[in-house]
């Protein structure tokens, strides 16, 4: 598969599943959080994930709450590096597409083009960089496309209407609707603005729209999926991982989320 063949894999996959009537579920794991961290990928896929967000840990994760900060810190403390993670992923084919989530400094360290090429070589389909907003995206989006990596853009509840449209149009893989003004982390309920965001983003085209940040329970997931195509779930899973629960156990939670979505 060369870059051009590969490109669009994440979005195609998600669209196909969504169009089949399925609410999408993208669970998250921090790369390097344990020696067997790639086992979480397989377990998630088996438990009904439609894609998986893989966090590439960064020392100063601005948009992450306490749980994922702690996970990043642990992963880095045990020697996790970008190169190591990508080598591991390259040797670990997973049944669903992967999107890497990391911060701009990791992307730009040896040049965005080099970074995206390495992602592609490792078989990663998508890339999420929360501290590269729409205005700064040109450089990265060009090289990502060239490398065959789908650059997922984020939108927030306070993003202006025209800007929302542009983000929706320019995003690849899916559009990531951030449901709260705040960092990642578990919350209860789902705000009106979050639902409105999902609805608006869906109105700007047919690209899958996922909501994330603060979604933890199956009920919340189902609620979110009511105004979007699916959800990203991170902190609640990572809390379990940090507590020492293994891939099978955490996959149980993923399965419960899956069930919630399917029931909703």
């Amino acid at each position, binding site marked *: 598969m060369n870059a051009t063949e590969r490109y669009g894999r994440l979005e195609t996959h998600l669209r196909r599943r969504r169009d089949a009537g399925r609410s999408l579920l993208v669970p998250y794991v921090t790369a390097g959080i344990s020696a067997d961290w790639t086992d979480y990928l397989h377990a998630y896929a088996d438990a009904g994930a439609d894609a998986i967000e893989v966090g590439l840990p*960064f*020392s*100063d*994760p*601005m*948009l992450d*709450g*306490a749980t994922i*900060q702690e996970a990043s*810190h642990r992963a*880095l403390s045990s020697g996790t*590096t*970008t*190169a190591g993670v990508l080598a591991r992923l390259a040797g670990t084919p997973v049944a669903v597409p992967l999107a890497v989530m990391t*911060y*701009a*400094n*990791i*992307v*730009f*360290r*040896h040049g965005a083009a080099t970074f995206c090429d390495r992602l592609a070589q490792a078989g990663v389909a998508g890339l999420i960089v*929360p*501290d*590269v*907003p*729409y*205005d*700064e995206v040109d450089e990265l989006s060009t090289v990502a496309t060239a490398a065959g990596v789908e650059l997922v853009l*984020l*939108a*927030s*509840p*306070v*993003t*202006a209407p025209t*800007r929302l449209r542009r*983000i929706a149009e320019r995003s690849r893989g899916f559009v990531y609707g*951030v449901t709260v*003004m*705040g*960092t990642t982390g578990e919350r209860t309920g789902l705000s009106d603005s979050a639902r409105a965001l999902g609805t608006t983003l869906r109105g700007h085209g047919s690209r899958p729209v996922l909501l994330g940040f603060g979604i933890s329970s199956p009920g919340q997931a189902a609620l979110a999926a009511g105004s979007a195509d699916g959800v990203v779930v991170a902190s609640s899973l990572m809390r379990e991982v940090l507590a020492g629960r293994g891939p099978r156990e955490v996959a149980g939670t993923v399965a419960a989320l899956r069930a919630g979505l399917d029931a909703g």
Partner: protein
Amino acid sequence: MELSRPGPDAVGTGRSRSVMADPGSTGRFGRFGGRYVPESLVPACEQLESGFRAAWADPAFRAGLARTLALHAGRPTPVTPALRLSAELGLTLLLKREDLTHTGSHKINNVLGQAMLAKRMGKTRLLAETGAGQHGVASATAAALLGLECVVYMGERDMRRQELNVFRMELLGATVVAVRNGSRTLKDACTEALRGWVTQVDEAHYCVGSVMGPHPYPWMVREFQRVVGEEARQQCAALLPQGRPDVVVACVGGGSNAAGTFAGFVDTDARLVGVEAAGGAAVSRGAPGVLHGYRSQVLQDEHGQILEAHSISAGLDYPGIGPEHAHLADIGRAEYPSVTDAEVVEAVLRLARTEGIVPALESAHALAWVLRAAGTPQLPTGCSVLVTLSGRGDKDGAQLVALRRDGARSGALRRDAAGTPR
């Protein structure tokens, strides 16, 4: 590098006026700067940019700020000819005295500007990050003066090291939030302040403490600090026969006092020198990167993980540098050498004993470079040097006492040496 010695006609001519100008809507300084923030902060940054543009173009705002700086913060600060040290070094040394401002450093210029802007924009709360506590105290001060709430994010480790400044902030009515992430120091406090801002953008203004952060901060903070350089330029014109110093020197943590100083001289042929701490030398030892919302030179490992800076002075313990400085280094308009902790302690002692001024450890970096370079081709005999003394050393007393106890870093602090004028 040889000292450039332009003829008098070169002053204010040779240099392009576009250096240190308005960076426009992208907030770029060459390849640096920009606005690397989550989408949730983009509207706040845009609102701040337009708020600042409007205020800065409004003579009433500028007059009000100037009045507050004069009546409350003690501006203008003098430029002091350091007569005895000049004689020892064989050059003309002038000191821009930001140590004489209210709260004891140049930080007040910036926080008063931002606090007045925040109030004008209808915000009711200031958020600030702080390392040693100087910017936190300044922010708490400005907030008290303007009747705003103030929340200061501070690393838990720094809070323990700076109990007194924590107390001062609380005395001023601020709430100090302990940051327990990462290294529990300044860089984590910055990160946490950005996180906090995301949750309260409507009512809160994030009062960034240096020429860093997403656009418009690096530009806005430089403009608020410009008063340092503009005053100094006028004062130098009155004090120096040739009208302007040959070399202008300031210490660089984030780089706000240096940026404000340089802004007053960038269109002259004065050499501009920003002095970093050897353990936090982002220009010479960093690599291009993105941190806290902007692109610049950043201390990081080969994998892109941010490194902790290590300096005797808490205010320079920061792994980044303002993007405009990275650009000035790129284009060769300014140089960024670094000095060691031991040189810094020597510089504190030297200034104390020759001029009766105890500078902040941060400010002593600028002076330490002058001491090293004096009489070399870098600073030939007879040249004139302006050093911005960004702050006073009172805050560092406990640390220096501890150093003397340990006898660790510098023999110069030993008690037996202390009584003897040098």
